[in-house]
């Protein structure tokens, strides 16, 4: 049947038709999803919060590299740290740790920071009672902005400076209990309590949840995300699985 001469509505069909021929999709890359689920490795986003100079970065540095630097400048270049905690049952919990990068200083943390955070460590300095006040503000902010299931640990750092203590253990513990938070004291300098607080958080995280990048649940390690992966080479993500819409 002849098409009407002025009916050009079919034309946009063409580019796609030839595209498929010109750029045949390559085979899908091997998925590491299965392997990660088998070895029970889970990845969680952990955010740090607290006033400037309470030792957020030092705490992470101790946890991740077991180092301490007395004269650490404000956070620069601590891009993206990860550390894995292995629990007694063999499950490996990988923390993807987000430092504030100084954006907390003038109340300029982006909503992105809180998004999909599975757990938060809110740090205060036991030698500065004002820093506990600040921690309370951050906890309110977390309750407002973050996922409801977020695990929050309140952490009194600089416990090695006992002689200058301004925040009593009782006061902080009582507040944590009222708000349903985990609580402990740490010293990034000596290392006391640092490993423990992260291990306790790992135990509290719901490892049964199946991976879903958007629900705030754990996702399998290895970058197996639900969306499109820009780092993958062109064409490596054939049709179907790229998008679950």
């Amino acid at each position, binding site marked *: 049947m002849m*098409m009407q001469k002025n009916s050009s509505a079919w034309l946009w069909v063409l580019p796609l038709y030839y595209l498929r021929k010109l*750029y045949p999709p390559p085979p899908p890359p091997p998925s590491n999803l299965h392997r990660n689920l088998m070895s029970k490795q889970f990845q969680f986003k952990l955010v740090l919060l607290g006033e400037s100079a309470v030792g957020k970065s030092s705490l992470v540095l101790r946890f991740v590299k077991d180092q301490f630097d007395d004269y650490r400048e404000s956070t620069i270049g601590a891009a993206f*740290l990860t550390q894995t905690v292995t629990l007694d049952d063999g499950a490996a919990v990988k923390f993807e740790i987000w430092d504030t990068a100084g954006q907390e200083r003038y109340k300029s943390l*982006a909503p992105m920071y809180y998004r999909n955070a599975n757990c938060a460590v809110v740090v205060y300095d036991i030698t500065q009672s004002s820093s506990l006040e600040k921690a309370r503000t951050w906890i309110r902010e977390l309750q407002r902005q973050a996922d409801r299931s977020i695990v929050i640990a309140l952490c009194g750092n600089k416990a090695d400076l006992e002689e200058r203590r301004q925040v009593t253990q009782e006061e902080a513990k009582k507040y944590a209990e009222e708000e349903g938070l985990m609580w402990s004291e740490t010293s990034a300098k000596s290392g006391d309590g640092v490993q423990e607080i992260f291990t306790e958080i790992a135990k509290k995280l719901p490892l049964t949840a199946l991976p879903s990048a*958007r629900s705030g649940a754990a996702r399998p390690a290895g970058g197996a995300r*639900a969306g*499109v992966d820009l780092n993958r080479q062109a064409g490596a993500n054939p049709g179907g699985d790229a998008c679950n819409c």
Partner: protein
Amino acid sequence: MDEEYDVIVLGTGLTECILSGLLSVEGKKVLHMDRNDYYGGDSASLNLTQLYRHFRPNQEPPAELGRDRDYNVDLVPKFIIASGELTKILVHTDVTRYLEFKQIAGSFVYRDGKISKVPSTEMEAVKSPLMGLFEKRRAKKFFEFLQGWKDEDPSTHQGINLDKDSMKTVYEKFGLEAGTQDFIGHAMALYLDDDYITKVARPSYERIVMYTSSMARYGKSPYIYPLYGLGELPQSFARLSAIYGGTYMLDKKVDEIVLGPDGKFVGVKSGGETVKAKQVIGDPSYFGAGKTDGEGGKVRVIEEGKVVRAICILKHPIPGTEDSDSVQIIIPQNQVGRRNDIYIAMVSSTHNVCAKDVYIAIVSTIVETDKPELEIAPGLNLLGQISEKFVTVSPLYTPTSSGVDDSIFVTRSYDATSHFETVVDDVHDVWRRVVGKDLELKKREVEVEA
């Protein structure tokens, strides 16, 4: 605030945030300020409270729209071209680790009063009853020609010189009908008007190649979109900047751009204090945009035209789009007797930009008359019932000088194109003016893994 900076950046739109991030990575000491208490400036995504505060300060958001925090409504409708320049910057700076992307589900084109899908499978294409035989052959030859083109091999040129011949000549060589040209020029090369036809063919060739390789990359459409809205893009580059030492101050009013006796930039006055820096970069709104006497008595930006945008909240997908969760619809200018195309960009809860069963469509075009809202009527009419509509007419500003003389570097407004390629052009342009050399994208150091 008594420190001195290399660069002060004003406004946290995407252009400014990319520049701020790249400058910090380069080792510059950057102070980044915004008068708003949120990131993104004109390229922000707003929650319901912010949206209503922005457009209707005296009205509360209706409760039926759902939770405030479920919303991230873009102010500017743009999608990311999968193989485009923004994607390159995202990958090179590694900010992709802060972001998650989804495809835009489909592209549609308006033709003869209705919209039709760009088929995404060979099956769909083959089965289409609309396939004509002769034009199909001609178009096939045209696409094969583009695909086979090699600069260094004249045998692939078929007598065409991409750098001398116009696109008109190319179309004519393959005998393509006006309708085909419309499709190629507007839906693939993404030109907003027909001016490209009489110009040299190379840019059109490059745009079509970019479109086809983007389309081939993920399959459904050439576009990707960040979950939680476009506002995630400036946020992620701001984080990059902060990680490399950039200082961030939101909710910070800028009172004055302070100049020295020689007219050169000295600092920025805010809340009674003056912060000094060698250079300043900022969006037009910090440099007198919209004021007849400019900023501080100097006209630093001029208006180049206007864009009308209507943000529409729908309770249903756009009719005729097969219930797609996200679409781009192009209404080519010829179809509605205009000079410029009308675009519709729609996203929904799949992209975490609104509550479930809500759809957000933005209809936009370049203003041609003194009744801008009437101009987008052909687009609005395709949407079905509209629950809420926020219309803005935004002037497009461009800087009056390069900034080389006074160390004041102004970025451009977000234009009417449906993608970010011109934003990246502006980044390159400003970088060249600020740094004095071309922007080279270096790979960042890899993550620290213990």
